[in-house]
Structures are given as C-alpha cells and as structure tokens.
C-alpha cells in the first residue's frame, strides 16, 4: 500500500493550492469517506452495519449526533431498506448517502436497478468484500462487479485519498441534469477501510463552490404533483432503458469536467485510467483498486529487467473504451489483475470488458489473472509471476486465464 504522497500527487499540485493551508490527517478510509460526506451537505443518511463498512456509518452517526452534519440519520433494519429509504428521500428533494458491503450490496441489488431507473442521484460507498458461500468478510471485488449492470456509476479507489475525493465528485456527477444516475465508490475492504493513511481533507468552502446545493428538477411536491415509479409497457419501457444508456454516456464527459474542476482546488488529477510508467512498454498490467500499489512497487523494482507498466482502472461504469483502445494500441499484451471471477467464463469481469473494448481494433492478447479472492494476500512475488507469464506469452499465450496462488 502506498500513501498519496508516493503516488506523485504532490508533484501535480498547483502552487496556489499548495500555498493554502490544507487539513491533512492520518485516518482510515472509512473515516475519509465519512469526512467527505460531511463536506457535501448531505440531508438524509440511511445506515445499516456490515463488516468492513460499519465504521463509516458509525462516524456519520457521531457527526450527526454532534450536529457537525445537519442530516436525518435513518437506522434502517436492512440494506434493502437502506437504499429504499433513499429512493424515497431523494425524489423528496434530499441529498442522500448510504454505505454497504458484500451481502448488503447484493441484498440491495433489486433497489439499485430501481434507483438508477428512476434516475436518482444517490451516492453510496461500498467496502469491497467477498460474497458467501463460504461466508467471508475479507476483500475481493466480486460484490460490486456482480451489480455492474444495475445502471450505477462505479469508481474504484486505490487509496484513502481517492475514496474521499470520489465521494465529493460523485455528487457533482450524479446530480448533473444530463446524468441523473446513482454512483458508487468502491474501497477495498480492510486493505483500505481499516488502514491508516495521511489524507487531505479539502476546505469546506472550496467544496461548497464545487458542489452547489442539490436542486432537483422533479420532486415529490404537493404543489405540483408528479407520479414517480409508474409502470411502463412494451410500447415505452425500451426507451427508458435507452435514456439510461445515454445518461451513462453523458456521464463520461461530466466525469471529466468534474475532475477538471476538482483539480482546480485540490491539485489532484483524476482520469478514468491512471497510467504509471506506461510509455513504450510491451506489457500493460491493468489493475483495479488497492492492489495497484503493490503492482506499482514491483514495476518500480523490475522496470529495468522487463518492459512493463501499469494502467489503473479507476472507473468501471461508464467503461472507458476509448482509453483502453489507446493504451492497447501502444502495447503488446495486457495482463488484467483482478479480484473477481465470472463462474462459467473462467475470467474476471474486467478482463472480459477489456476484450470487449478491443474487439475489432488492434488484437493483442488479454490475460485474466484472478488474485486475492476472499482476502488472500497478493504479495509482490505474485505480481512478479504475473509479469513473467505476460513476458512469455508475448510470443504465443498458453491460455487466457490464470488463477494465481491456487493451493
């Protein structure tokens, strides 16, 4: 794991913001997420405990109790109800937040489709955790990737700073009239949620300027009654789905604009893919989330020996097809390192999406490396093995998919 400092973030910071006195504390990712919610003037928070997310809603309970956040805090009886409560609160005009993980996310999944279909700008943090059975509370990314088709914008954080920054940007993106889709910030369970890192908290005034108060275009208002969540027959349903797709496409542009504005007052640059030592490299290691830190370390160590760089995927929905094609056009092989598997396909969801992006363009091998399921460690030695497999596969890949460190 790397701190935000070692990611070269400070190098890109503008002089103006560097001069400003910024608050930087050492905190867990869960605290960082709660701090970001505090900055966003949230109106309604729905909370239900689940490991490893729990401390997010604990911090928020404390903030609300101390009146540091002026919000209603609904202690629901399940994750299904957590999201349902927000599906009520959001069209009533409230800015909303909830956090969950794993089983909780899957329990919510029905309502996730509804929230997106009703075009509600709800923001949620998901602490990535494996799915049962067998029951497992540790990290992988099967949970959020299982709901990839629910119509939610999905970001994946590598470190605490990214998680904090994404929550703030999510409100800006989701509430954009051209988007109006819910978004989810994913943080790796324990690797991030429970790990202390120095994290910079933006100035409240700056955030307020960046994120104006939520003014919904349509509300549940007795003065002008509207019907929400009606049913649509075969003559109109397909058009609603098409509108969702169009909104997701609009989100690509809006995400870039939000990143630009965000850079303006934080000096931290965000893009769909972070390229690390990627220039003129044969092997691209494509990573998602906290494992990126380890992979970067190994690349640092072996860059003289191998022609290898890192492409860190920060956003899975909308999927950055253009960027993937651009990266692939300069590379000879892509090794996707991911913590999930599609049973029956024997590859991860990210790898299949990369292949989807490359179909019809430059054909290079894409290998799926399944690592770290259920919280199994992904040490530098595993990454080294992956690099070697990719090097050997430059000529002719033996197979498409590798389960790493299988006992």
């Amino acid at each position, binding site marked *: 794991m790397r701190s935000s400092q070692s990611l070269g973030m400070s190098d890109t910071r503008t002089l103006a913001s560097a001069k400003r006195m910024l608050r930087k504390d050492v905190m867990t990712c869960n605290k960082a997420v709660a701090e970001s919610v505090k900055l966003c003037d949230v109106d309604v928070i729905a909370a239900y405990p689940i490991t490893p997310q729990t401390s997010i809603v604990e911090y928020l309970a404390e903030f609300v109790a101390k009146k540091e956040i002026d919000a209603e805090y609904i202690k629901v009886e399940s994750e*299904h109800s957590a999201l349902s409560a927000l599906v009520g609160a959001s069209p009533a005009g409230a800015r909303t937040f909830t956090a969950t993980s794993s089983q909780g996310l899957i329990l919510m999944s029905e309502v996730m489709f509804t929230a997106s279909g009703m075009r509600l700008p709800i923001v949620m943090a998901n602490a990535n955790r494996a799915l049962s059975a067998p029951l497992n509370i540790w990290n992988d990314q099967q949970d959020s990737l299982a709901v990839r088709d629910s119509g939610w914008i999905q970001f994946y954080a590598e470190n605490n700073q990214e998680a904090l920054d994404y929550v703030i940007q999510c409100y800006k993106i989701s509430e954009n009239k051209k988007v109006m889709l819910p978004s989810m910030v994913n943080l790796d369970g324990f690797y991030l949620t429970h790990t202390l890192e120095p994290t910079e908290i933006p100035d409240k005034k700056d955030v307020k300027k960046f994120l104006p108060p939520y003014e919904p275009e349509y509300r549940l208002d007795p003065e002008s009654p509207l019907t929400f969540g009606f049913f649509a027959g075969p003559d109109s349903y397909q058009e609603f789905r098409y509108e969702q797709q169009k909104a997701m496409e609009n989100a690509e542009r809006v995400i870039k604009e939000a990143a630009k504005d965000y850079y303006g007052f934080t000096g931290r640059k965000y893009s769909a893919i972070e390229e690390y030592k990627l220039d003129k490299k044969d092997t691209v290691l494509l990573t998602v989330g906290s494992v990126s830190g380890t992979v970067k370390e190994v690349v640092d160590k072996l860059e003289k020996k191998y022609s290898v760089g890192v492409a860190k995927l920060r956003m899975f929905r909308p999927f950055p097809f253009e960027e993937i094609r651009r990266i692939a056009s300069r590379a000879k092989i892509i090794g996707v390192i991911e913590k999930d598997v599609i049973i029956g396909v024997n590859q991860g969801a990210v790898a299949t999406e990369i292949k989807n992006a490359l179909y019809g363009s430059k054909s290079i091998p894409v290998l799926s490396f399944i690592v770290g399921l259920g919280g199994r460690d992904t040490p530098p030695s595993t990454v080294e093995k992956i690099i070697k497999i990719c090097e050997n596969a430059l000529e002719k890949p033996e197979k498409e998919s590798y389960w790493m460190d299988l006992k």
Partner: protein
Amino acid sequence: MIVLGEKASYVKCRWKCEAGLSANRCWYYRQHLKEVSEEELFTSGHRGCAGCGNVITVRLVLKASGKNVVVVSPTGCTEVISTPYPETSWEVPWIHANFENAGAVASGISDAVKVLLRKGKIKSKPKVIAIAGDGGTVDIGFQSLSGAMERGHDMLYICVDNEAYMNTGVQRSGATPYGAYTTTSPLGQDTPKKDMPAIMAAHRIPYVATATISLPLDFIEKVKKAISIEGASYIHVLAPCPTGWGFPGEKTIELGRLAVDAGMWTLYEILNGEFRVTYKPTAKVPVKEYLKAQKRFAHLSEETIKKIQEDIDKRWAEAFR
C-alpha cells in the same frame, strides 16, 4: 369540508337509531356524508375492475387527507391500475419503488421532509401516506413496515386488504382467511388470517385502527385522526375484491358490510394504547350469509362453516363484551 368530531360520529348515530334504519336511510349518516369532500384526487380512467375495493379505498383516503400528502404504493393492483405510462390517476405526488419496501420508502420521504423543512428548502409539510396491499404489507413488505413503525417516522401506513395476491391472479397471502379458495390454496386456506393490526399495535405506535370501505365515514374519520397524529400510525382496511372473491361488482359495499355484521371483521381503534370498538353491528348476521355470497367459499362444507361460526362467536364475545 367539516372535520368529523367525536360527538358527531356516525357510529354514535347508528346506536341512537332505534328504528333500526340501514345506513343509507339514516338521517344522521346522510348528514355526515355531505361533509365529505367532493373533490376527487384519484381520477377516473384507471384500469381497476368494476367495483374495485382498492379504488374506493384510495378515493376515501384522499378525500380525508386532502392535497397536502405524498403517497407511496408498493407493487400491486393499486399501482398497476393507476399508473400506466404516460397516464396517471394520481392528483397528489405519488411514488412506487418495489414490492417489499413501501415502509422504508415512506420513512425516507418522511425524514427528507423533516430535514428539508428544518433547512428551509421546502415550505410546507406534507403527510406521507403509504397505501399498500395485503401481500405488500403482511408478507413481503412485513420487515420494511415493521422497521418503519418501530422507528416511528411521521407517516400513515394503510393496508388495503383484499385478502390475496389479486394483481397476479388470486394467490393466497398471509391475510387470506381460513377456508378461502385461491389458485395456490385450491383446497381452501388451511391457516387463520394473520392478525396484522395486533402486530402493529405491538409496535406501540400511537394509532392503530381497522376499517372497511363499506363504512366510509368511520374510515374517513380514522384516516383524519391518524393524519393529525405526529408519528407512525397504521390502518388496516378491508376492501372486498369482486374478481378475487367471486361476487358481482355492484356488491362490493354490501360484502364489506356483511363482513362486519357477520363478525368476520371488527372495527376498532387503538389510540395511545386505549382499545375502543368503533362500531357494533346492531344484529349479528350468521357467517354463512357472508360466505355464501362469494365463490371463494363455495366449496366449504357445513362442518367447516360451523367451525368458522364458532370461531367468530368466540371473537365476537371478546370484542363486544
């Protein structure tokens, strides 16, 4: 519109009526009917069956509540008949999310209203009313409702009970009465109806009541009372379903009336823990009359009917002692 007071209540006038007049001939009753709003906030053109009890329920609720409400409906007949895009029957703000979450959705709206008022983002405070079917209440929506009631949000939850899953074509629910035929209880429901109002009362919310659309003034009065109370309240209203129960559409009101007069359904309220019967039938009608009026009970043997009658007699004695 005049608010019905305790003294002017129709219940009292029924007891006064020594001539034993039926409700539509009772002078007091007709007098009070005039006091009910003529405004229809649930418009015609909906897809409800002729004589649909759900539609009558919604109309009466909105007559009692007026415009300053937000209505939540889970999936079910009420939702499907009233909101085929691009049409709607709702003249008040209305939302449907899923089948099992009306309680949670309503609690979210209620709390959003609370905080937005506090922050000055909205000016007036609408009452949040959930109108849900029996499936969405006593079965699949049970957890969500229980959570909402226990948390005590300012909302009124109304269960429109037609005693089965009618939207999907008459399948048994936890609210289906003993003996009733449905497509999934072809031999007749073999368990008693779940006593949902009692379960709601166990949540110690300020107001729980039962009602039927066939005694509209009693129902309207209860809705008004529930709305005036800050906190969570629950009304369970029996709404006969011609399609699911098997009777002609013009008999809906009669059936609801028979259910009460036969003791199949008791009208009461529990205000801050105080139980009070709000209507006592002048004469007890044998349950056979109620059962024989519906196809769903057509298969019942004399023995079963006797068993049902005995059960009713016991409950009657308890309720009206």
